[in-house]
C-alpha cells in the first residue's frame, strides 16, 4: 500500500487545541492520503473530524505538527490541491452561484460568459445541474453542496474533501453522489469524505479512518475492518448500534375524533412557480405522520408554512379543529405546539446565548426571587437529566452539533405538546445520537403526541412513520402500507418523480 510516489498528503503529529474554549479537537494525528483513493473519515459528533478537515484544507493551520503536501509545507499549495465541500453552508448569500464559484484570491476582471461556459462544461461533464444565476441564499442544502462541488471540479482540485455530504441528501441523491465520487476516483482524483453511516462507507470507501475524541483510532483498508470493529473504534464500546427501531405493528390509531392538525387544500406559489398544490392531510394524537420528499420539492415550504413564517395562498390550517389562519410562530407556540426546525442554529437555538438562556424559552421556572438563580439551577438539572454535554452557562455555539440537537429535542418534548412538527431531526447526527432521538420520538408518540415528521432520510421515514406521504413537485401522495409500496425503492422513486419519468 505504501507507495511513496502516490502519497499526496501526509499529516505528522497534528494537534489542534482551540484557545478560546480549551477544546482539544485533534491530538497527535499522523496519517497519509494517497492518490486516487476514497478515504472515509468516521467518528461521533464532536470527535474532531471537521477540524481535521479544516486543517487539511488549509482553512486552519495546525497548532502543532505539520501537514506535508507533496512533501512541501506551503499552505498555498495545500489550498491549490484541496477542494472542500463544507458541512455548514459556507457561501456568500448575496452572491450568485456563479460568483460564489469563481470567488478566490485571484485578481482582475473576469469574463462572465467565458467562465459560465467553462463551468457549464464541468456541470455537463459530471451531470451536476444547477442554475448559476440563483443567489446563494436561495439554495437548498443539497444545492449548496453541489455548488461547492462544482467549484472544486472546475478548479480541477486533485483532492476533494466532503464533510458529511449525505447528511442532507435523499437516498437517491446520495447514490448519485457516490457514483460521482467513484468516477472521480477513476479519473485519478482523491476523495476524503466524512460520514456516520457505516453502510455507505462500506459501499464506496477504499480505506477508512476512525477518529474518537480527537485521536486517530485506526486507519485501514475497508476489507480489514468490519462494521463491528468500526463501531467499536468510534464509540469505544463493543455494541453495534441497533438496527433501526423496527416499525412495530401497531393497533389501529383512533382517527375518529378531531385531528390535532389538519391541512386543507393548502397551496403556495413563489415567484410565479406553484410550489405546493392542494395539500390535504389530517394528523391524530399518537401517530407519526412522515412526510418525505426533497427539500426543494416543497418540503421547505411545508415547514415554513407550518411554523407560521410563510402564509399559504390558498387553504387552511386547522389546529384541534380550529382555523388558525393566519398562523404566526407566536400563535403556533401559544397553541402549545412544539417545533424542531431543520435550521437549528437559526430557528432552533440562539448560538450566541448560553445553554440556560436557550432553555429559558420553556418558561418552566416559575417562582419568586432571581430568575437567573431559578433558571440556572433548573437548567443545570435539565442538562444532566438529558445527558447534554455542556454547562448551563456555556454558549450554545461552543457545543457540538449533536449536543445542540439533543438540547433542542429535549426542550421541545419537555412540555408534552399535543403536536410536534419536526424537520430533518437527524441531520448530522452520529448513529448513537440518531438512535436515541428516534426512540425519543417513538416514546413521545406512545405518550399520545401527534408528530409530523418532515424528512429527506428514507430510512428514518420508513422506520418511524405510522403513515407516510410523499411530496412530489408540490403534490402529496400517501404511501400504502403494502409490501409493494412500503419500501425505500418505491418511496425513493416517488420522491424524485422517477416513477413518472
Amino acid at each position: 500500500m505504501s507507495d511513496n510516489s502516490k502519497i499526496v498528503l501526509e499529516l505528522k503529529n497534528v494537534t489542534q487545541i482551540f484557545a478560546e474554549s480549551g477544546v482539544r479537537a485533534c491530538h497527535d494525528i499522523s496519517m497519509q492520503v494517497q492518490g486516487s483513493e476514497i478515504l472515509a473519515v468516521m467518528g461521533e459528533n464532536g470527535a474532531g473530524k471537521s477540524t481535521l478537515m479544516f486543517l487539511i484544507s488549509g482553512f486552519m493551520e495546525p497548532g502543532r505538527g505539520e501537514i506535508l503536501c507533496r512533501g512541501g509545507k506551503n499552505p498555498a499549495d495545500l489550498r491549490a490541491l484541496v477542494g472542500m465541500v463544507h458541512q455548514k453552508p459556507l457561501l456568500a448569500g448575496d452572491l450568485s452561484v456563479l460568483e460564489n464559484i469563481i470567488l478566490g484570491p485571484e485578481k482582475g476582471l473576469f469574463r462572465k460568459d467565458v467562465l459560465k461556459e467553462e463551468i457549464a462544461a464541468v456541470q455537463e461533464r459530471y451531470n451536476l445541474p444547477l442554475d448559476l444565476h440563483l443567489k446563494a441564499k436561495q439554495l437548498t442544502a443539497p444545492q449548496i453542496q453541489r455548488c461547492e462541488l462544482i467549484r472544486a471540479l472546475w478548479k480541477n482540485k486533485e483532492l476533494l474533501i466532503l464533510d458529511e455530504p449525505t447528511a442532507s441528501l435523499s437516498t437517491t441523491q446520495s447514490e448519485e453522489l457516490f457514483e460521482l465520487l467513484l468516477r472521480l476516483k477513476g479519473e485519478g482524483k482523491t476523495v476524503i469524505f466524512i460520514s456516520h453511516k457505516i453502510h455507505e462507507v462500506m459501499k464506496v470507501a477504499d480505506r477508512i479512518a476512525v477518529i474518537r475524541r480527537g485521536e486517530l483510532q485506526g486507519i485501514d483498508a475497508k476489507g480489514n475492518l468490519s462494521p463491528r470493529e468500526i463501531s467499536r473504534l468510534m464509540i469505544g464500546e463493543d455494541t453495534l448500534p441497533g438496527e433501526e427501531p423496527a416499525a412495530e405493528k401497531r393497533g389501529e390509531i383512533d382517527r375518529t375524533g378531531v385531528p390535532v392538525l389538519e391541512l386543507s387544500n393548502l397551496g403556495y406559489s413563489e415567484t410565479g412557480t406553484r410550489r405546493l398544490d392542494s395539500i390535504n392531510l389530517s394528523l391524530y394524537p399518537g401517530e407519526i405522520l412522515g412526510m418525505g420528499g426533497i427539500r426543494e420539492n416543497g418540503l421547505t415550504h411545508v415547514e415554513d408554512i407550518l411554523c407560521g413564517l410563510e402564509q399559504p395562498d390558498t387553504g387552511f390550517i386547522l389546529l384541534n379543529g380550529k382555523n388558525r389562519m393566519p398562523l404566526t410562530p407566536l400563535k403556533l407556540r401559544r397553541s402549545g405546539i412544539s417545533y424542531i426546525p431543520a435550521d437549528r442554529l437559526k430557528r432552533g437555538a440562539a448560538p450566541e446565548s448560553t445553554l440556560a438562556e436557550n432553555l429559558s424559552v420553556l418558561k418552566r421556572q416559575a417562582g419568586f426571587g432571581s430568575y437567573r438563580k431559578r433558571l440556572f439551577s433548573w437548567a443545570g438539572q435539565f442538562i444532566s437529566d438529558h445527558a447534554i454535554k455542556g454547562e448551563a452557562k456555556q454558549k450554545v455555539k461552543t457545543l457540538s452539533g449533536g449536543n445542540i440537537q439533543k438540547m433542542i429535542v429535549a426542550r421541545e418534548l419537555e412540555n408534552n405538546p399535543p403536536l410536534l412538527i419536526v424537520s430533518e431531526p437527524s441531520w448530522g447526527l452520529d448513529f448513537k445520537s440518531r438512535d436515541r432521538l428516534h426512540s425519543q420520538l417513538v416514546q413521545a408518540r406512545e405518550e399520545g403526541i401527534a408528530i409530523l415528521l418532515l424528512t429527506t432520510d428514507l430510512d428514518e421515514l420508513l422506520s418511524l412513520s405510522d403513515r407516510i406521504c410523499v411530496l412530489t413537485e408540490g403534490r402529496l401522495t400517501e404511501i400504502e402500507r403494502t409490501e409493494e409500496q412500503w419500501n425505500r425503492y418505491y418511496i425513493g422513486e416517488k420522491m424524485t418523480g422517477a416513477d413518472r419519468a
Partner: protein
Amino acid sequence: MILAIFGSATPLILAALGGLLTERAGILNIALEGMILGSAFAAVIVGGMTGSLALAVLAAIGAGVLAALLFNLGTFTLKGNPFITGLGINVLVPALTVSISQSLYGNQGIIRPDGLSGISRIGGMDIFIPLALLLAVLLQIIFFRTRKGLIIRSCGEQEDLLRARGINPVSIKKEMVIYSGLFSGLAGAALSLGLGVYVPGMSAGKGWIALVAIYLGYRKVPGVVAACLLFSLAEWGANRAQGFLGVPPTLILSFPYFMTMAALWLFSVKKRKKVDCSGGFRVN
C-alpha cells in the same frame, strides 16, 4: 433644477459610495463625517497655495486616506470599537483643521483663497458631478465584474468563506476603509472646491446622511445613488419651499428627514416578505 440636485447630491454620493465599500466589507464607517471635513480643508489649502485642481484633489484624497489610516489604527491595530473610533475621528478632525489653519493663516477659520472659485468647473458643470456618476458606474462594474468585487461583496457577510478561499478578510476591511477615505476625500473636495471656500463644520452632517443613504439604497450602488438623489431632491424642494410656502422656514428644514423616512417606510412595507434573519449587533 436637475443640475442643482445632482450638484448638491455629488458630495453625498461620493461619501456614500465610500461608505458602501466599508459597509459591504462589514464595517459601519461613522468616520465619514470627519473624513469629508478634513478633505474639504486640505483641498482648499492646497488648491489655494498651488491653484491646481489636480493637486487640490490629491491633497483631499490624501487627507481622507490619512483619516482612514487613523480609523484603521484604532479599529484594527488597537482593536477598538469602530463606532467609538469613528466618533473619535469626528471629534479630532475639526479640531486639527482649526489648529492647522491657525498655524498657516493666523486666526482664520474660513479660508477663501483667490482664484479657487470655479476651479472645479469645466463648461459650466462641476467636474465632480460626472466624476461621482462615473465612479458609481465603476464601482458597480467592480462589484459585479471583477474578482475583487466578489471579495468585497462577500466580506461583510461571510468572513469564513474568504478565509477558506485563502483571502484575509481583515486586510480587505482595512483596504476598504482606505478606499472609503479616498472617496470621502473626493466628497470633501467636491464640497469645498465647488464653493471655492472652506468653512469650519461645512460637512454639516453629510457623513451621517451618506450612511443613511447606504441603508436606504439597500447597500447597492444604484440604490445608494438614488437615495442620495432622493435626499437632495427633498432638500431642494424644501429650499425652494421656503420661498413660497407659508410655513416657517425652520420647520421646512425638517422636511427632508421626514420625506426620507417616509420613503424608507414605504420601501420596507413593499419589500417585507419573510423575515427570518437574526438581528444581532452591528456595532460590536
